[in-house]
């Protein structure tokens, strides 16, 4: 029954995804004749009241602390789960996933280069709070407060294990994505993270077709892989990882001494549990060679990044517009169908020469940004390589602080934990 039940749910999702294209945006022209119908005036939604915004921040802090308490002190998966369901409802469905720390990185970066971009203080807080928290209590934000994570947790029905080596390689994607998002935000091109957020259209119950498609894809993945977005793509997770590594409080699988019973080995859906290991001592590599390789990697990254930047520039909307306008002004007018955006541009009356000039500047920005992007990617790559080469001696099972999302799942599998819970304070709920 249990297995069937899961299958049924998975089937439902598949069925639903088949039908999901119907929710692609429809736009069609108003009637071509006068009607009595009054086209409604476009209204802008008023901004969320100040006190509500601060309430949101208060709730965020509370939820992070609660989640940390539940995973570190109370050690209860059930409480963490309830908290995360609350976050899913509140930050996800009620607040429609915006503003969230994941996307806030872009606001912050854009406000650095564009003084006209208004960055609310609350956005900074939302960005900073989980980061600071992770320095003290690990990734409690991911465990309980992130609606994205909560949704993926809820969806995980039939787990497929991913080997570690693949997990480690795929998690590089998050750093590349972060670099790209920063570059696109810095150049005022697009908020990549928001545009391709897979879960926001689900929180909002609507969205453009490509977003729904993307959402559908991640929903499918989440059915079989534990938190695929968090592990492999989330740019905010990429920032939290190194901080969590040096966090003061860390999740331990067992409340007491690990007896290496192997029972928890498989309990983490995110492959975050490190196994005891006694590596044989290997002879030290020539450090100079490693350093040399590392530096040449960075240089190669910079050079290639420079030209990659030029390619990325073509995704900037002004560059796209300029290419279209150029084709229009060089080609035969009858044969070219202008996009609405291009038509609007012509309507503004600005000369294309000014656009080309602006776009040349944009391209240069991208090329310079591309250098940093390339260096960044190779830098992270190098670290990952060095990290892989490192083989620490380990005697017990323990969570990898960077990867552990404080979900408290593994505790239940620890016999010591179970024993403590059942013989301990009688008022405690049985886990």
């Amino acid at each position, binding site marked *: 029954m249990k297995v069937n039940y899961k299958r049924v749910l998975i089937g439902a999702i598949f069925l639903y995804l088949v039908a999901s294209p119907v929710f692609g945006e429809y736009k069609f022209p108003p009637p071509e004749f006068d009607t009595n119908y009054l086209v409604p005036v476009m209204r802008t939604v008023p901004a969320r009241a100040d006190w509500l915004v601060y309430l949101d921040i208060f709730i965020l802090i509370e939820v992070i602390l609660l989640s940390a308490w539940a995973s570190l002190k109370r050690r209860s998966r059930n409480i963490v789960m309830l908290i995360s369901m609350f976050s899913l409802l509140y930050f996800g469905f009620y607040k429609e996933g915006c503003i969230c720390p994941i996307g806030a990185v872009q606001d912050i970066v854009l406000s650095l280069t564009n003084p006209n971009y208004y960055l609310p203080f609350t956005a900074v807080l939302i960005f900073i709070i989980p980061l600071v928290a992770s320095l003290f209590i690990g990734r409690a934000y991911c465990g309980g407060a992130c609606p994205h994570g909560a949704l993926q947790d809820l969806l995980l029905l039939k787990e497929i294990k991913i080997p570690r080596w693949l997990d480690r390689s795929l998690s590089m994607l998050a750093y*590349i994505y972060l670099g790209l998002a920063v570059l696109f935000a810095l150049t005022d091109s697009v908020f990549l993270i928001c545009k391709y957020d897979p879960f926001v259209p689900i929180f909002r119950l609507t969205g453009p077709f490509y977003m729904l498609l993307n959402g559908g894809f991640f929903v499918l993945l989440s059915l079989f892989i534990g938190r695929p977005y968090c592990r492999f793509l989330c740019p905010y997770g990429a920032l939290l990882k190194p901080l969590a590594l040096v966090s003061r409080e860390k999740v331990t699988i067992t409340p007491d001494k690990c007896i290496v019973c192997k029972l928890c080995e498989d309990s983490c859906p995110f492959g975050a549990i490190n196994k005891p290991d006694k590596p044989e001592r290997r002879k030290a590599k020539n450090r100079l060679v490693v350093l040399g390789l590392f530096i040449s990697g960075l240089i190669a990254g910079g050079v290639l990044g420079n030209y990659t930047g*030029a390619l990325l520039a073509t995704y900037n909307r002004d560059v796209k517009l300029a290419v279209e306008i150029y084709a229009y002004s060089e080609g035969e007018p009858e044969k070219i169908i202008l996009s609405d955006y291009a038509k609007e541009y012509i*309507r503004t009356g600005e000369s294309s020469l000014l656009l080309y000039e602006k776009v040349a500047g944009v391209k240069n920005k991208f090329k310079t940004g591309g250098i940093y992007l390339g260096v960044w990617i190779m830098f992270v790559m190098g670290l990952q390589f060095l990290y892989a080469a490192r083989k620490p001696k380990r005697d017990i099972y323990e969570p990898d602080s960077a990867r552990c999302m404080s979900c408290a799942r593994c505790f239940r*599998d620890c016999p010591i934990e179970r024993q403590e819970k059942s013989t301990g304070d009688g008022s405690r709920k*049985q886990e």
Partner: protein
Amino acid sequence: MMDQENRNNILRLFFKQVAVAAAIVAILAALTLTVYYLSGQQGNIQDSPVLTALKAKLEKYPDNEKLLFEFRDQDLKERTAFFRKSSFLDYGKNIFIVFFLLALAAFRLKGVFTERLPEVKKGSETVYKTGELAGANIYMVSSGLTAVIILGLLGTFAIWGFQKLPFEPAETEIKEKVIDLSSAWNGFRGPAGTGLVKDGNYVKEWDIKTGKNIIWQIALPVKSYSSPVVYKDNLFLTGSEAKVLKVSCYDAKNGSLKWSSSVMVPVKLDDVEIMSEDAGGAGYAAPTTVTDGELVFAFFATDHLVCFDYAGKQRWVKYFGKSENTYGLSSSPLLWKKNIILQLDRGGEGLSKLVSLDRKTGQITWETKRPVGASWGTPAIIEYKGKNELITTGEEQVISYDPDTGKELWRVKCLTGEISTSPVYGDGKIIAIDVGSVSTVSAIIPGGAGDVTKTNIVWSMQEENQAINTPVTDGKLLVVAMNSLVVGQDIKTGKVLWKISLEDDFWASPSLVNGTIYVPSQKGKVYIVSYEGKLLGTMDMDSKCSASPAFVDGKIFIRSEKNLFCIGTR
């Protein structure tokens, strides 16, 4: 203990039931949606074949009322159906998502109350597999591989990035081409804005009825007062129709339409109200275009200056804000070095100004406020003592400016009434005419600074007829076409040399072509007058001629209210 177990069992069962029930609803919703979707019922009226067919029919028979109503009915039907469908789908989607999440949540909660013992599961090796791969640590291999893949991708993207944008900034720097405009009629009253033609053979006789000396003739779709402008084979005209501003280019050889482009502007033209030609206003398109041989510039009474290229593509538009001049505007843009100069005398506090814009980009190079109300004349650029001056006529005064900077040089108060005449220059004198029931013709010498009314007027004379157009002079003879009178004067002294009385009125300006004067009239005639003041002939046109003709390469281009004529010998 027993109690707790019981409670847990009950809760587990409860959540299980909830989960099953919610899952059933979710699946039903998903099924319905899928069936609905696969049945192709997601209609979009944009692709409706019925509507498309009806529309095509309607375009053929636009006056068929029955068809029209059929179209409307069908349109309404399809829209209603569409919205019904979409709200159905919307409900379905919400039901699915809510119940699916409920099922998942209940499923998880059921798990909370399910006792489950830890076990060493199968498959854990998958995660921890650290097997040696060809003697190397698998992590090292995979990291190395990842690095190679990423470097490879970077390299590929870099190669793509090599390809340049189609417009590199260096290439878009417009090389200043020197274009010879001397043989063109590239703006209002010719290249120098004088209406003076010194060479070429132009016929003095034609007949639109028999077609004698008519090279071609085409009907114009819209009425407007702007004059034709010709460069090589391109003849430009402006017009407006139902608040659509148009610039059209005809083939000067045969009159065929090369293109006709609507101006795309950032404001709603519905908000602009200009008196039409029929209501006694100047309409939307009275100013004449000007071209530099590559681009053509048109100004409209909606206060838009627009630049088109020779393929009919709009290059830029400049909007000067709404004016208070409901008669419309008629001042034509002027070419000056790299710029376009425009006299915007628009009435209203502080609205009148002179602006100079970069030809290629439409960016303002200078702007000077003018202390005048509305006026309709086109400025002229003259050369005096090696210096260029931009001469303007306007309410009460003639003001001279430096055409490079827009700085005012001097002014003379000699005008009254609503000034529609433009200044002309000859024999070192600027001729300005005011507009009233009496016309005062004033000859002014340029130079000086500030108000030079007392010192610079050389002569002035009055005639009891109204002149609203611009005179023409060759530096000796000055010809003024007024209401029912054409006068020839000595420009040196203002002495009247001859007068011809005609039962007619003249809005278009006269031209002096190799010593012969051409005067188009409001009664639809063109009077041909000799240098000595003899009426050589009266050519009948089909309708009013309010636009000044263009003289190029032995051909005369005349725009009447309804037609455009190319006159000359083949």
